[in-house]
């Protein structure tokens, strides 16, 4: 069945595009310098790191501007790289594809990235190996750009694992802390389970289409049987869940908060966790042909959306609340990506805006923590709006954006998704709206506990406004959160139509479909509940609760316990069983062969009793035997 959308054939790179690999090369060079430089680069290392990311931002902007100038057809530009492996009928090249989707992502990564770099110069000011921190951050930028700019699944996989490695290094940056090391390991292993899906998907693609190149796959996708296509879709979904912390593989995201806050902002809010959505959107040609796989994506999206909201509303740690909200926002994006060609554009739109305001929220939380001597428990905050006005204002703007108050960015991006969800199916729409309401509730709870209400600071803590270097990124991001919604509302659909195969229909910023109004109403109800519940007295210690909902929410929906029982303990027991089996049976059989021989030897030695007469007896027996044989021989 021919896919209903036209295949975009990228045109060969000319002019500036042929230098697009510079985007990756600059941060790679910087991270190499910082890593190999050693102590010498300590004093100016961090500024070099910031320069690295700014460099690639400049290249990205330049490419974006030239691309704007190009006619739509020529916007997908292929930069042919070198031949990675070509053997038999398998040939894998390493080339770059710069098209609307990937340049948008590059801008997000480098844009938000540079702001976060600037922020972390201040945030990590007194950390001894700050140089290493910036080296890893640059490594992350390199890996993320490779992921988004790759023109085939294999190079994407290289970026994919590179990002996993960078997140491992950064989560476990303070390795002295045992919990950080555990969280880092957990993140990498769970990501690796996701990567399993991508690996199997690639094998199937090579088996089915003979190549892993996006264009080849998109062209040849029609020829494959639907069963294999569904399998392919599910494999890719597994990979996406691993990386974007969707329900089956989401346990690592909340532990990832062990890392420094800029890391959480950059990796676990804005960029890396959205890689899964990018993968699903990039392979839209596969998902269009398998309704089952797309449905699976939607279901995973919705379930994660609710799970994230549930966890977000029960946690007391400000970063864990934001992590839960990230998980649920990505649920929205996954839901949109699963809905189909139209949904892809909305998913990326929400992803873009979410990148800005979620990074802003995280950095705001970072500056709050900075002021509160790195304490993250919201019950110890309260009434910070008077003490930290700038942080409060920027935080508030992003708060309004994320819950989806109209003029701001969050509303438009989420509104499209909710509308698309309603069109997809009333149950999807209902759950999406409910999710929006819960999001409003827990974000209000966070605002109330942190900035409003009475002062609940621990003794010896006297919060003060963060230094300028922390505030500047906050301000820029909050401006983004305000402006982006309206600016990109229609433009993004046209911009992303070719790579995502959607049919844009523009709508002015003020005409909002009925579903939009319903959602807004639910959001306002959520805010009201949040305000009423948390304007009164808030206890300093976390109250011990018997309410099951709150208990389950606090324990991350018992995901860790489940993993622990099934995989860690069960796997451990199985492994121990195999180990003993190996020792006892395989090795045992060899050892017993040895002792058997010794046993036989011992028995025989008893015959050598030393008594002449017993030898005599043996001789007589022998003689008789010979005699008998002779006689029998004679008789027979």
């Amino acid at each position: 069945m021919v896919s209903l959308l036209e295949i975009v054939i990228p045109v060969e790179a000319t002019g500036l595009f042929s230098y697009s690999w510079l985007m990756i090369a600059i941060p790679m060079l910087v991270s190499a310098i910082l890593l190999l430089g050693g102590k010498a680069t300590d004093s100016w290392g961090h500024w070099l790191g910031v320069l690295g990311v700014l460099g690639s931002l400049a290249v990205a902007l330049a490419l974006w501007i030239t691309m704007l100038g190009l006619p739509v057809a020529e916007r997908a530009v292929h930069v042919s790289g070198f031949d990675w492996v070509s053997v038999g009928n398998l040939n894998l090249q390493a080339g770059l594809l710069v098209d609307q989707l990937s340049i948008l992502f590059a801008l997000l990564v480098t844009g938000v990235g540079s702001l976060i770099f600037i922020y972390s110069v201040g945030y990590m000011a007194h950390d001894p190996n700050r140089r290493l921190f910036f080296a890893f951050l640059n490594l992350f930028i390199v890996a993320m750009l490779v992921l988004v700019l790759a023109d085939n699944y294999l190079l994407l996989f290289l970026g994919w694992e590179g990002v996993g490695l960078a997140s491992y290094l950064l989560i476990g940056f303070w390795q002295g802390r045992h919990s950080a090391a555990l969280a880092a390991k957990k993140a990498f292993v769970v990501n690796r389970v996701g990567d399993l899906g991508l690996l199997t998907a690639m094998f199937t693609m090579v088996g089915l289409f003979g190549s892993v190149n996006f264009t080849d796959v998109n062209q040849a996708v029609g020829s494959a049987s639907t069963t294999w296509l569904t399998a392919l879709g599910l494999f890719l979904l597994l990979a996406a869940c691993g990386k974007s912390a969707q329900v089956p593989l989401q346990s690592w995201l909340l532990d990832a908060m062990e890392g420094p806050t800029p890391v959480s902002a950059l990796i676990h809010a804005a960029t890396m966790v959205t890689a899964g959505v990018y993968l699903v959107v990039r392979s839209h040609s596969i998902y269009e042909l398998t309704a089952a796989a797309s449905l699976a994506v939607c279901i995973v999206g919705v379930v994660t959306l609710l799970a994230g909201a549930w966890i977000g509303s029960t946690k007391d740690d400000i970063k864990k609340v934001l992590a839960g909200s990230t998980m649920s926002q990505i649920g929205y994006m996954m839901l949109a990506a699963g809905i189909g060609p139209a949904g892809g554009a909305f998913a990326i739109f929400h992803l873009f805006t979410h990148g800005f305001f979620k990074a802003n929220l995280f950095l705001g939380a970072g500056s709050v923590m900075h002021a509160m001597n790195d304490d993250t428990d919201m019950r110890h905050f309260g009434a910070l709006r008077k003490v930290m006005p700038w942080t409060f204002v920027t935080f508030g703007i992003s708060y309004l954006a994320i819950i989806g108050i109209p003029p701001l960015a969050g509303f438009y991006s989420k509104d499209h998704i909710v509308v698309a969800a309603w069109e997809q199916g009333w149950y999807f729409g209902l759950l999406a709206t409910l999710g929006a309401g819960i999001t409003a509730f827990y974000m209000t709870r966070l605002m109330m506990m942190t900035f409003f209400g009475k002062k609940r600071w621990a003794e010896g803590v006297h919060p003060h406004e963060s230094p300028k270097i922390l505030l500047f990124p906050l301000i820029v991001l909050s401006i983004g959160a305000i402006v982006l919604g309206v600016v990109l509302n229609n433009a993004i659909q046209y911009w992303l139509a070719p790579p995502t195969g959607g049919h844009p229909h523009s709508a002015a910023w003020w005409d909002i479909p009925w579903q939009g109004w319903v959602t807004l109403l639910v959001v306002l109800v959520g805010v009201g509940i949040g305000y009423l519940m948390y304007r009164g007295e808030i206890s300093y210690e976390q109250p011990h609760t018997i309410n099951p909902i709150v208990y389950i929410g606090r324990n991350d929906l018992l995901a860790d316990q489940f993993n622990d029982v099934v995989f860690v303990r069960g796997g451990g027991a199985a492994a121990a069983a195999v180990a003993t089996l190996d020792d006892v049976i395989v090795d045992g059989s060899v050892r017993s062969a040895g002792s058997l021989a010794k046993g036989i030897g011992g028995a025989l030695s008893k015959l050598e009793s030393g008594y002449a007469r017993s030898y005599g007896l043996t001789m007589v027996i022998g003689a008789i035997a010979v005699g008998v044989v002779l006689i029998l021989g004679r008789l027979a």
Partner: protein
Amino acid sequence: MDNSIPLLTVLGVLPLIFSLIAFAVRGRAGKHVAFVGSLVTMVFGIWIFFAAASNDFSEMVPWIKAIGAWYALSLDGMGRAMVLLSVILVPIVLIAEWTLDSKQTDGHLEPRWGSNVFGALALMVEGFGLFVFMASDVLLFYIFFEATLIPMFFLITGWGGAKRGKAAMKFLLYSLAGGLIMLFAVIGVYAVTAGAGQPSFLIDDFAAIAMSETVQKMLFVGFFIAFAVKAPMVPVHTWLPDTAEQAVPGATALLVGILDKIGTFGMIRICLGMLPGASLWATPLVVVLAVISIIYGAVLAITSTDLLRLVSYTSVSHFGFMVLGIFAFTTSSITGSIFYMLAHGFSSAALFLAVGFLQNRRGSVAIADFGGVREFAPLLAGVFLVSGLATLGLPGTANFAGEFVIMTGAWPRQTAAVAVAVFATVLAAVYVLWAYQRVFTGQPSDEVKKSITSDLDGREKLVIGPLIALLLVFGFFPQPMINVVEQTAVTTMNVVGMTDPLPGSMGGK
């Protein structure tokens, strides 16, 4: 390049000569002689590696006419790769074990001989190994196949832990048992060729000789068991962890780097090269064994509490991948497994030597004795992490290139097997990172504070630097080496008479 001078023989004999000199020269001077010898061999080996691309160095001289045994050496793609691996590994191992005499590890006995003997034995292993890789006559192959055991045995018993004698004996018995079975097969080869007119042990023209199904199967079983013991596959693998635990990490790196490769090398060169019909017949069983080895090795690596045993179990798992690649019968999977042999040589050597550095400092390799080493030796931690990531096959390292090409090639033919084998990538992540976390992160105990005082010194950087560089170079640019190695895969596929499955013919056998 007139091949009047028998270059391949010179390459093989060179390390043996230096080994004899090193034996003779006592004390430190002997060690220097051995090291110089290994460098000379390395230079000459690398030159041959590049020169062999353009001209044919094969030599053929009748050796024992009566039974048709030839002194025949030749170098094809796979041979060149293995020669390159061997000549690079030996100097690195010699530098790594430079302070062999002054090393005091608790539980380790006094070294039996001087460090010059260690160098000499290593060169002897290299010399015999090179001859095995170059031999194109079954009898010659067999003789050097057995010869490598002797120096290896002394390497293990000479220096190492308390039960080094027992471990060396176990290694020797396993390999000799395998070798014996192979001897029957070699004699079988003579019988078959003699039956078909002119008796000859040459590998190349053996496949053409018509022989009955059962005879071919018998020969295959004989050869395969010997190679399965050498490249440790599950039922016969228990000698490797014991040897690795007791022997000095340098010796184990040599063992896993060079000797174990003879197992998979032999499978391609002899099992597939000479007995294609039987190989096809045995494929289902072998693939199952390979998959078991992959998962089994990984699981045991997770449960092991001793770093050296952990690394040796990872080798068992990786050899499973190679065998899976070989018996998937596609050009890419065979090329992938040969490339993986090379990559695994470097990555396992890197990991073993990194554990060796830990052992030099802490005196023991039990994971429980470590904790928070990163505080005091960040560079060592970094090096261990990189080699660990190479072992678990992170993209960008040579292991990934090998593993990926194997699995992609094997997928159409052995879908189920690859589907199970791919889980090993997750298990690999678990055992590497869990070991890294228990050894390097967290709060250091006071013994660790006392013993881990110095980070990597110049010598250790000189050892691990090139290995990691090679891993990354072959990880990002594997194509040049793939071209070299593909030549063997193509010839093997012609001999076996199989063609690669066309895209779209999924799941078909």
